[in-house]
């Protein structure tokens, strides 16, 4: 008998509110199935399960706020206590622990409909405006069945309700970044990578592809980092009370800006093993879902490192803040054309400032320098990525 627990979706999360069960007692579940929806500071998140089994019974009713780690359901035929992955988060001795009492769920803010991701998906597919619906879920949350009923009635306009609570997201970022700056002894390295070959390769590859198949530079950069991490494991994992713990795979948290403010960095799992086309497809899917607010719990708890790409808005250099309990962040700026010396002659080349912010408790600058140099080397042979 195993327990399906309230997962931790980041260092800053203390509790979550169960919004909706998507599986009933007696339902068989398989690893990766979405079992429940939980409301957190990062919006409504679908919680997936990490083990095969059968839902034995629910332990928590929708509408209940419980601390991280609380068993939510019993799973028959599963290993005990390993059912839902809970990220080990070290205590924060430097600061007094905030009261652990579960927060009282505030009433929904005016203008923002509370709804489960499944309900939102259906609403967006059928063109149902969530703001016009009354929900039958906890706290008036709109459930799948509510949207189904509405869709069966009159078709309404395709109003897309904003589902991310940017204020809450800002609070979550504040908590995580304050902890990072308080606890993690950062060191910073920077290098300039000649991108000319990578960009030429990308242009040639995209010239023969339809837009749906085209690659973005971001995919190349992520793959370069992922491959280099294979040789630099001390940047891939978590720092906990037991010290540095190696990640169980290379799962790259990809920083995605949310229009109107906010940031979220869900994981691309096993990025080192994904062919470039597959990695691009995952990235595309992840960006779309992050901006719609439809991420899964494992995507938020899995990242073993974060990559941020701030070149879009014209900055050349990123000085990263590590997302605890991770131990490193790789930052890419904007590719710029600069006079560069190639084989003793000055030439115009596209170059990219690449930085590493790393946790000095887990690694040293010497290893960090080798890691950055390896990313550079790999980006010089884009066809091999």
């Amino acid at each position, binding site marked *: 008998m195993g327990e399906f627990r309230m997962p931790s979706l980041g260092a800053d999360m203390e509790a979550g509110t169960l919004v909706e069960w998507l599986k009933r007692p007696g339902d068989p579940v398989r690893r990766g199935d979405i079992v429940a929806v939980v409301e957190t500071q990062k919006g409504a998140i679908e919680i997936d399960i990490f083990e095969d089994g059968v839902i034995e019974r629910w332990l928590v009713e929708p509408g209940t706020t419980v601390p991280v780690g609380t068993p939510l359901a019993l799973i028959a035929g599963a290993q005990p206590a390993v059912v839902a992955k809970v990220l080990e988060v070290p205590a924060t001795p430097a600061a007094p622990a905030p009261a652990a009492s579960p927060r009282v769920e505030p009433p929904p803010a005016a203008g923002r409909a509370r709804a489960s991701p499944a309900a939102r998906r259906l609403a967006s597919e059928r063109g149902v405006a969530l703001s016009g619906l009354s929900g039958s879920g906890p706290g008036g949350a709109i459930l799948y069945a509510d949207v189904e009923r509405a869709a069966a009635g009159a078709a309404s306009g395709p109003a*897309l309700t*904003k589902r991310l609570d940017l204020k809450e997201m800002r609070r979550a970022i504040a908590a995580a970044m304050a902890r990072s700056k308080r606890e993690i002894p950062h060191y910073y390295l920077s290098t300039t990578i000649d991108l000319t070959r990578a960009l030429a390769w990308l*242009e040639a590859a*995209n*010239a023969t592809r*339809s*837009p*749906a198949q*085209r690659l*973005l*530079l*971001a995919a190349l950069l992520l793959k370069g980092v992922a491959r280099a991490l294979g040789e630099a494991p001390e940047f891939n994992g978590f720092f906990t009370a037991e010290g540095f713990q190696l990640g169980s795979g290379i799962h790259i948290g990809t920083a995605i*800006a949310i*229009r*109107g403010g906010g940031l979220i960095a869900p994981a691309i799992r096993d990025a080192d093993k994904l062919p470039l086309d597959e990695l691009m497809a995952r*990235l*595309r899917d992840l*960006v*779309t879902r992050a901006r719609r607010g439809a991420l899964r719990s494992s995507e938020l708890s899995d990242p073993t490192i974060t990559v941020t790409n701030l070149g*879009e808005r014209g900055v050349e250099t990123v000085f990263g803040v590590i997302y605890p309990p991770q131990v490193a962040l790789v930052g890419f700026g904007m590719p710029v054309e600069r006079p560069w010396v190639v084989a003793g002659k000055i030439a115009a080349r596209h170059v990219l400032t690449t930085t590493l912010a790393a946790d000095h408790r887990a690694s040293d600058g010497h290893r960090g320098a080798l890691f950055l140099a390896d990313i550079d080397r790999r980006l010089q042979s884009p066809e091999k990525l």
Partner: protein
Amino acid sequence: MTRDDINAILIDELGRIAPETDASRVDPNAELREELDIDSMDFLNLVTALTERLAIDIPEIDYPSLATFNHAVDYLAQRLGIAE
């Protein structure tokens, strides 16, 4: 298809990419990337949607022609063979 149709399609697709903004109020001569805060992924999604909806190809090399709303309408009209 007329230029007005292209206008409407472009507003519609921009609205899907950036639902938080009002695409019909965008300054037609300003850079779309800045007006609507769209990044390269949004832009790729826009190009993908337009090529599928209008059944035309938009090669990557032509992306600069779609920088502003007005330029994008001009470009799409020309690709579709619609006179001024």
